[in-house]
């Protein structure tokens, strides 16, 4: 297990380097010269040239990349073109909000999704199962940003139950968390259901029946624990989709998180900010995946053997 963790941690290094390279290269594709952009209108050719030199833009691209990575590792993602403050500082102000939102949503994804999936599987083909599966299908088909707007319309505009936008209190959190978590909950519900149905066909369930156990003990004691193991992976993957989804949810609910920071940065062409934001979100996701893999491995070691 320890060896596995070490190996898995080492494996993330090339992935992280790859991610940084992709982000770096994407920014190289930007038409126009960052130095010209930074120098502003009416700058002389000399000013631009010296700025280019200052930024290291006159050096070979590989050199620039290595330089970028070395700085990034130390937490230096450059300065925002708009506010002139370090990118990392700006991100650190926004990141906790996004993480709060992501955690609240993952809670909804996991709890709601699993409960619905279990009900569905244990009552296969019942009215409850069919309605849960239809709602789940809708859940993966609704655009989250539209769901968010409709929730605002019904619960905030009409019923005045929750604030329309912003962040800070618990009641601010509810609608955005539902908006962001609904899609994942639907996927987890579908996965839990099919995993449960798969598990109840296993030999050890037959053994449990042959022992004379009650049906609900068979399902909840012998089935559930096994069924939830593959669901872990799905939850891990959902975390990625969710992290990306914060971009939309934060925009709908006017939450000043990392996602909104990135979108605003794209609009104002604040490239270092986009670069830093995307990179940090990806790094979080990579480590999240690492944790999920280790967790899955831990639970799955017993099953993997045959």
């Amino acid at each position: 297990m320890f060896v596995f963790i070490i190996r898995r941690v080492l494996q993330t290094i090339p992935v992280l380097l790859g991610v940084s390279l992709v982000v770096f290269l994407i920014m190289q594709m930007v038409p126009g010269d960052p130095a010209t952009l930074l120098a502003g209108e009416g700058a002389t050719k000399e000013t631009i040239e010296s700025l280019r030199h200052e930024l290291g833009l006159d050096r070979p691209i590989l050199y620039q990349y290595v330089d970028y990575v070395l700085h990034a590792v130390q937490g230096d993602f450059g300065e925002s073109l708009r506010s002139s403050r370090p990118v990392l500082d700006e991100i650190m102000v926004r990141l906790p909000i996004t993480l709060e939102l992501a955690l609240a949503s993952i809670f909804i994804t996991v709890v709601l999704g699993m409960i619905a999936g279990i009900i569905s599987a244990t009552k296969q083909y019942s009215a409850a199962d069919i309605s849960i599966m239809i709602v789940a299908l809708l859940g993966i088909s609704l655009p989250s940003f539209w769901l968010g707007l409709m929730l605002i319309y019904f619960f905030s505009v009409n019923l005045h139950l929750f604030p329309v936008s912003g962040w800070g209190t618990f009641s601010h959190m509810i609608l955005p968390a539902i908006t962001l978590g609904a899609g994942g909950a639907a996927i987890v519900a579908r996965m839990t259901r099919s995993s449960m149905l798969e598990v109840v066909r296993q030999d050890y369930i037959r053994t449990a029946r042959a022992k004379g156990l009650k049906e609900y003990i068979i399902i909840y004691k012998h089935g559930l624990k096994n069924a939830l193991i593959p669901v872990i992976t799905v939850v891990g993957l959902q975390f990625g989709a969710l992290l990306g989804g914060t971009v939309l949810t934060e925009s709908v609910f006017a939450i000043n998180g990392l996602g909104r920071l990135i979108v605003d940065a794209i609009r104002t062409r604040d490239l270092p900010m986009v670069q830093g934001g995307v990179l940090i979100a990806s790094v979080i996701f990579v480590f999240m995946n690492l944790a999920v893999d280790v967790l899955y491995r831990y639970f799955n070691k017993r099953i993997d053997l045959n």
Partner: protein
Amino acid sequence: MKPEVVINNTELNVKERKSPKLRHWKAFYKKFKRNKLALVGGYIVLFYILLAIFAPLISPQDPYEIDLVNKLQPPSAEHLMGTDDKGRDILSRLLYGTRLSLTVGFVSVFFGAFIGILLGLAAGYYGKWIDTVIMRIVDVLLAFPGILLALAIISALGPSLINVMVAVGVFSIPMFARIVRGSTLSVRKLEYIDAIRALGATDFTIICKHIFPNILSPVIVQATLRLATAILSAAGLSFLGLGAQPPSPEWGAMLSSGRDYLFSAPHIALFPGIAISTLVLGFNIFGDGLRDALDPRMKK
């Protein structure tokens, strides 16, 4: 000389294989038809495709015609879905928007599938370092959470619907590459492939004639489900103002303009959302049904 031989060969093969193949498709159709829900999905998709084709004929109004006097009108006999903030007929805009969403969906998925299939075939067929390099690239692409990669690409290329297609297409590449690699590997390992090679078949003919037919069904299933994701992502990007630009009747963009009038005219945001949801739902259940009928092993 050479092509002639190949043509003869394929003709022969088609003749030989016709009956089992036909039976295969019949079995698939029978299975698929039994799945009523999937059939509904197929009809929804077909319905939208027809709407897109005949949009100019069935649109009651010009989707771009501004009529500020009649702006923000709720649904009425004249405007079945009301008017937007510039007085344009929402129904007509939605109908034209179908063309955009379907185009973005199909183009981006085709683009992503094309590159993904090439990468997957190369990785699965040639193995060794080619496999390692390609799969590391795939890992890297998958390390970006959700649509952030698409977002990054658009930030570089600039906001436009074309760039959305590119970005969403790139976003689809790793999924296709993984699936195709897996299927290729499983066919590649079969002994008859070695036998055919021993008979002098080139890599190209082996890939085209023996491997490609085997990866087709998982690719079709993945493409259908991917269309749903692509349409959602594209609408999301346009919603953020990074895709289609006004006055384009793109659904995500329409929704975005509706958010400012959520209090006074909620129908502006309501209808585009319903349009996106039903189309995506159609692709999702159609894809689920295809998967169950084509490849029960993929059932998850």
